[in-house]
């Protein structure tokens, strides 16, 4: 389990998600693919914070405590990405329900019909 293996896993998930977003018309499938993309980003962030030391540790002299703590900034980005992704999923599913009220199929081209 090296950094390259984890980054390849992340890149594969990202590409699969991009393919799903581009090639599906169903609104719910597009939301699922977006969740795959968000998860691939969190995997990359956690892998970087696990395998790469913060820059200040390698300097000479005293080590400030905040440099040791900054070994975990990838985790913080992961937490914020997860929170934003949860909000986005809830809003997008609300849009799906609103779309189902005006149209009988969930194609992404019909989203503009929600407006009226």
């Amino acid at each position: 389990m090296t950094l390259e293996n984890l980054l390849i896993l992340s890149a594969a998930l990202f590409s699969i998600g991009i393919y799903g977003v581009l090639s599906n018309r169903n609104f719910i499938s597009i939301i699922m693919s977006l969740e795959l993309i968000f998860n691939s980003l969190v995997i990359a962030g956690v892998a970087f914070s696990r395998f790469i030391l913060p820059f200040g540790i390698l300097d000479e002299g005293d080590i400030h405590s905040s440099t040791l703590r900054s070994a975990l900034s990838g985790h913080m980005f992961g937490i914020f990405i997860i929170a934003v992704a949860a909000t986005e999923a809830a809003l997008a599913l609300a849009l799906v329900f609103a779309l189902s009220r005006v149209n009988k199929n969930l194609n992404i081209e019909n989203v503009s019909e929600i407006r009226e």
Partner: protein
Amino acid sequence: MIENSFFMDLIFYIVSAVIISLSIVVIFISDIFRAAIALAGTFLGIAVVYFMLNAEFIGAVQILVYVGAISVLMAFAVMFLRTLSKSATPSSYRPFSLIISVLIFISFLIGIYNIEWKTIDILDDSYDKNILGTLYGKYYELGYGEHIYISSSENLDSGLLSVENKGVFIDSTSIIGAYLVQEYLLAFQIIGLILVVGVVGGLLIMKEPDKDETL
């Protein structure tokens, strides 16, 4: 604490194969309810990867938020709208999007293998090892009443950081808690605001339109 053994590599390869195949199932299956179930399986596999990376807090959040909330939300939406979304209609851009995603993946591969990552196992093998050696066996103040101890051995007591075994092993939960109320306090509060706005906006979008057009 996780050792870099052959056994852990084997588990990692198996779990990532499961993740990739389940995500391909999510994209290609026509029954959208089964796609939602496969998506939950993908999230569980990713949580296993987080636990293997010593990111316990992120793994627990992943299980709580993704497997527990988002997958259930997706399954509910699919069950409500199952008659509408009987089959995922393929787009006419399929070959184009296949080319795009394969190009993205290839460019990621080129980037990953051409950049010389300064990872910890590179440092262990090089002359920089004595820089890491100066870190061992000392206490460091973390600034909020806690200390951190960098161990030079493989066994890790509570609340420690070890850079010996090819990785930064750190008690992530307490440090994330300190982060959320110190350095990242503004971002934390903005996330709370975003969640409130998201919930209220979702309710407004979902609401049946009134006859007299008043909200």
